[in-house]
């Protein structure tokens, strides 16, 4: 029996948390066409993709315990900044690691990104299961997982929180839905868009792991290899940033009076909680 091939597509993004308000406002005021300048902040894994990468490792571990073989692959659409992350994933046991370096920025071009991911999954990776984050940072449309599934003709589950193995060709998936948690048994192939999962941190390889797998190749694939004419696709998706506007998030604050914690708790209860409790 051949191993189940799981592909995780991830994105390396600027650390938006490291931007100051002034950086956002400068982007809004002076350079709306190009957006906020993010070149100078460090890069991080998109948090939803980080969950997907760790969930895939855990799924692989759980399948191994049941005697099922798994072959993990990682793909990122991006430049040189993705290389350290791909090396880390290889050290963690991802057998295949590749990046597709587009010749132009793919901001606001979800259909192009989806074509690249779908092309890689079918033409190169021959994946059985595709995991990816349900969305990435500011400016992201959140549509990539749906578009990938559409291109592949696979079912797509969103807001995935957990994945467990059932049989060799089936997984049990927990997804967040409006009124609770939905548990579904899926026959593969499928696309899983990972949401706000409890598992949010990728494990860390040791220096020994890195040394042992340092010679494994990171593939660099072009759009042409995948049958995607990126420049032409981009021209069909002429989405440009028109402007940026700050959101006033200031909230009114009240300093609760009182000399002791007991007095402060009483004042807080009387002024804010008592009336709410009475309405229950």
């Amino acid at each position: 029996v051949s191993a189940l091939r799981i592909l995780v597509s991830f994105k390396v993004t600027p650390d938006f948390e490291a931007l100051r308000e002034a950086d956002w406002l400068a982007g809004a005021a002076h350079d709306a066409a190009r957006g906020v300048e993010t070149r100078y902040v460090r890069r991080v894994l998109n948090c939803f993709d980080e969950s997907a990468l760790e969930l895939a490792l855990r799924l692989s571990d759980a399948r191994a315990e049941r005697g099922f073989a798994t072959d993990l692959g990682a793909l990122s659409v991006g430049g040189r900044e993705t290389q350290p992350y791909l090396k880390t994933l290889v050290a963690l046991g991802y057998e295949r690691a590749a990046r597709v370096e587009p010749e132009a920025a793919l901001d606001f071009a979800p259909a192009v990104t989806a074509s690249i991911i779908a092309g890689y999954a079918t033409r190169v990776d021959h994946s059985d299961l595709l995991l990816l984050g349900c969305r990435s940072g500011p400016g992201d449309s959140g549509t990539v997982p749906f578009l990938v599934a559409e291109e592949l003709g696979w079912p797509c589950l969103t807001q995935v929180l957990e994945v467990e193995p059932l049989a060799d060709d089936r997984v049990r998936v927990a997804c967040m839905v409006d009124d609770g948690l939905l548990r579904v048994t899926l026959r593969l192939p499928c696309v899983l868009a990972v949401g706000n999962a409890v598992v949010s941190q990728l494990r860390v390889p040791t220096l020994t792991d890195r040394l042992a797998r340092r010679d494994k190749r990171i593939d660099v694939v072009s759009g042409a290899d995948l049958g995607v004419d990126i420049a032409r696709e981009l021209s069909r998706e002429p989405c440009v940033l028109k402007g940026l506007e700050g959101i006033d998030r200031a909230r009114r604050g009240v300093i609760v009076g009182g000399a002791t914690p007991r007095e402060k708790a009483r004042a807080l209860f009387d002024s804010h909680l008592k009336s709410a409790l009475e309405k229950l």
Partner: protein
Amino acid sequence: MDLSREAVVEGLQRLVGPDDVITDEAVLVQSSVDNFRKLQNIFDVHTMPVPAAVVMARSTRQVAEILSFADEHGVNVIPRTGATATEGGLESAVADSVIIDGSAMNQILSIDAYNMQATAQCGVPLQVLEDRAREQGLTTGHSPQSKPVAHMGGLVATRSIGQFSTLYGGIEDMVVGLEAVFPGGRVTRIKNVPRRAAGPDIRHVVIGNEGALCFITEVTVKLFPYFPENNTFLGWTLKDMKTGFEVLREVMVSGYRPSVARVYDPGDAGLHFSHFAEPDDCVLLFMAEGAPGIAKATAEGIDAVVAAHPECTQVDSRYISTWFNDLCWGPDKITAEDERIRQTHNVNRTTEISADWSSINEIYQAARARIVNEIPDITMAGGHSSHSYINGTNMYFNYFFNVVGVGPEEETTKYYLPIIGIICEETLKRGGSIVHHHGIGKARTPWVKEEYGSSYYILETLKHAYDPHGIMNKGTIIPK
């Protein structure tokens, strides 16, 4: 101790009232450790003796009464303000200790813009004092990574240092006077003067005492004019730490005083600078600040020094300024880091030492090699130099490991203490100091006698003289 746990609590309640004596079990258990055993709090697995109470002191008089009570009955006390210690200084080494918490003594008593000094109670967060000073165009010049959460009393007690130390100095260069309470309840004040030659500088009995001699209730620190508009950032990549140390030395010996002067090794640089540095790059960076002429001359001087090292490649200064603007750790980053550890069992620890220019690179190389070769499950071993002087610099070892095969309570014995041991051994072997700015705490007491050599006599005598009954933070600085 001649009192039961209950009698200790009752005695404290008589002194400060019941509301300010905290006996909630969860608070006590959490207060039995500091960041040295942070995994015990993260995973809620505790092994240290549980304190009898946390007592909130609201005045110098209350501190004096508590210390008098403790001294009379032999109760071990642990002075605390912001609770950000990293070396076990806040651990309760013996059962039924009392934590004296000064965080409610949080008034800024004066900001004297003419005499350029500010006086604050021990529980004033440094960030609050700094923000108030900046309203008047002034700065304390003190900016440790813990600035958003650390308090003035603790910063002085642990002899802290900030990110701008190369210009402004450590806290010992900033404190001009203070008030402290010694065992038995004796209140002492050291007056605020620019300098004096009236015998030994007794500020240094108090600064860095880590709660093992006295409780600091008030401090007066220097103020400086604040010129952020002149801040100039400079950065280079290079391939080896030896060159980096050499450049730092040349800058210092040439007489330039950048506020920030650092060199990162490739591992540590990878955590911050991988968006512009290659995986095998070291990163050298500086910040020049001050009045316009000074900032400009400093930046130009540094440029000239580095230009003589063609192996250094200059990078866009905005990489450095952007990094610098996100350097301090507030509660949000601490919470995120705790969650990362909870999920991955991957722990980040740091140990800082200092040495002269001749030895620092050897210590860095030897200690790093031994950590990688001797300690299991290491995921990163590196560091940076971040505080330089005319005669040497520090090395801030920064390392990560996966905790494998043991519970969180054994992390210190399997990984952390052996690594500290390697770093201390390699440092002492070459004449350096085993602690540059975190304090001895309890973690580094095994090496304190070797650190001091024959001058340990002075340290030990201070302890016996000021704390004859041994009630002050037992096991801190002086081994138990």
